[in-house]
């Protein structure tokens, strides 16, 4: 909260009838409670985003339930979608499998073993070994870690940049908006794989560098989506109210517009994760992604053609199946969230 904002709980603000009235003592105490409650009151009319912050209401908290209902309904809708739950289950499974699997299934992934290369699956190596003699199952776990890390990090970064850019552009309007959006049009016209590959040749591949390259070029779609939302939101009364009360532009964007455009962003983030994981696999496959000693699914499939022709199926199909399953899980979750929020969205 900035200095120029109206004082929290100040006497000059009268909640409208039907607006949210904070139930005394229902919300966890803390220095920011007054602020966030005032927020809720202010944004009551168009509120969607802060519903999440409202704790599950007890029997007396009827008003709270009404506020949270947008999110509640979406959540219920999502939970009733069986495919979505399958997707969520698969994603959670892979998170556990990749990050906690190595704690249970100990494998050597640092010292090559020339005596045990390309060994078929056996009791000692459940999915055999690769051409360096590394255990394939263990390597799939480590490769999954980097894939998920890059996917989540790149999608997160793209979402943050895109959301701020889109909100700014939609709010500014006029010539600034036109220029900012033409810039997005230009960047969207450059095939993503091309530019990412070219940049990947320049910077040595690490989890961070690859996430940055992908994240810095995939914020365009979220930017467009958020701008579209902001264009409709900024005509609403609560935005005018915030302006009249002297709220700054920054406050308007961060506290009011972005929370209300959040559903669009959340749906898009799942697709961004899926796309980033696919993109990183393409980079790895072509030899410009993470490579030995770091494990990555794309790199493991880079030699797949030789493996296939030599009959080493265990080096190709298990890791490929993991890749497809993770991407599919993200897409399923995204589709279900989109149905749940019922926003008109198009991928790309």
């Amino acid at each position, binding site marked *: 909260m900035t200095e120029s904002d109206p004082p929290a709980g100040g006497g000059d603000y009268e909640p409208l009838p039907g607006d949210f009235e904070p139930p005394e003592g229902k919300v966890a105490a803390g220095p920011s409670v007054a602020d966030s409650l005032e927020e809720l009151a202010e944004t009551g009319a168009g509120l969607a985003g802060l519903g999440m912050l409202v704790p599950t209401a007890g029997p007396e908290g009827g008003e709270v339930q009404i506020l949270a209902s947008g999110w509640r309904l979406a959540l219920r809708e999502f939970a009733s979608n069986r495919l979505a739950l399958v997707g969520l289950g698969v994603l959670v499974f892979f998170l556990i499998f990749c990050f906690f699997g190595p704690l249970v299934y100990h494998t050597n992934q640092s010292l090559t073993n020339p005596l045990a290369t390309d060994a078929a699956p056996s009791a000692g190596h459940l999915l055999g070994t690769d051409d360096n003699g590394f255990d394939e199952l263990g390597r799939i776990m480590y490769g999954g870690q980097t894939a998920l890390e890059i996917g989540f990090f790149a999608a997160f970064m793209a979402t943050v940049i895109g959301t701020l850019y889109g909100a700014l552009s939609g709010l500014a309007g006029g010539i600034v908006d036109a220029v900012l959006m*033409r*810039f997005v049009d230009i960047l969207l016209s450059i095939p993503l794989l091309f530019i990412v590959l070219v940049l990947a040749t320049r910077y040595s591949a690490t989890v961070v560098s690859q996430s940055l390259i992908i994240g810095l070029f995939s914020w365009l779609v979220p930017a467009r989506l958020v701008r579209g939302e902001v264009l409709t939101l900024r005509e609403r009364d609560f935005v005018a109210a915030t302006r009249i009360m002297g709220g700054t532009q920054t406050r308007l964007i961060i506290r009011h517009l972005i929370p209300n455009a959040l559903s669009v962003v959340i749906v898009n983030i799942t697709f961004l994760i899926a796309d980033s994981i696919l993109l990183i696999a393409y980079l790895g496959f072509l030899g410009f992604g993470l490579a030995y000693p770091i494990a990555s699914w794309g790199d493991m499939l880079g030699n797949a053609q030789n493996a296939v022709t030599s009959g080493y199926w265990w080096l190709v199909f298990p890791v490929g199946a993991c890749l497809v399953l993770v991407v599919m899980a993200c897409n399923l979750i995204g589709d279900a969230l989109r149905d749940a929020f019922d926003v008109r969205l198009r991928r790309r």
Partner: protein
Amino acid sequence: MTGYIIRRCIAAVIIAIGVTAVVYALLAFTGGSPAVAALGTHANRYTIAIWNKDHGYDRPLVVQIASYVWDIVQFKFGYSYKQGQSVGALLNENAGRTAYLSGAALVLALLIAIPLGIVQAVKRNSIGDYVATAATFTLYSMPSFFLGLILIQIFALDLHVFPALVSDNVTTTWQAIVHPLQLTLPILTLAGLTVAGFSRYMRSSALDALAQDYIRLARAKGLSERLVLTRHLLRNACLPIITLVGLSIPGLLAGNIITEALFNYPGLGLLFYDSLQNLDYPVLLAYTVIGGVLTVIGNLLADIAVTVADPRVRVD
């Protein structure tokens, strides 16, 4: 409508120029020095400075961008010092084979996706519909090289129908056309990816069209179901496909890189892949710019085609 098309064309030209400028600037900031590429890594500072001056690389970035845009307008794509050839000649040499691969894949994808989407819509919520939806959804989540590897395993190694790699003898577009067996797997790989993108839209657009009154009227007047589908449904359900084809260009170009690298098919994608490995920036720059411009053209054509085909979306 003419006014709209003219305005749309002007916007497309501006965006195409923007694409060229942005890609050039990005590579100028991050790309390797062309002087080092031309003179070798052991060139000393003075030779490099002289070379830069001779070739215009000492000018301000804005001037360089402007002159590069002007070159592109005149179809001058620069010179590949690594390969000792003009980039234009390199691109020209490979363009035909890539156009054939992409074109065949696109046509095949349309031939599969359109009937599939319509059948799925007509028989919606049947087992067949669910299977088809699951299959296309899986394809949609699959990296194209993995689809290619599965196809190689099944058709080349298990069934011995098609070769796993495109033979080195396929050097011209004509040879690619007269040896259909060689290119079957690459075309299938690229088409599979495109089908995955198209059929979901085709199904939902056919579902929308099926609910319209003119379909009910056609059925009510006693038209056979086949005629209802081919005469009335097909044309209306295909409208979104026009846009999708226009927007499929970046996907096809990216798919070309992967497919050509996987099957060792000499086209623009393989040229790009080789240039990435040789750090041959003039080629990378030129092909990225061309990819961007093709994308802009695809968007433009899609917009115009939809306006022409569908009177309802005409502005003005």
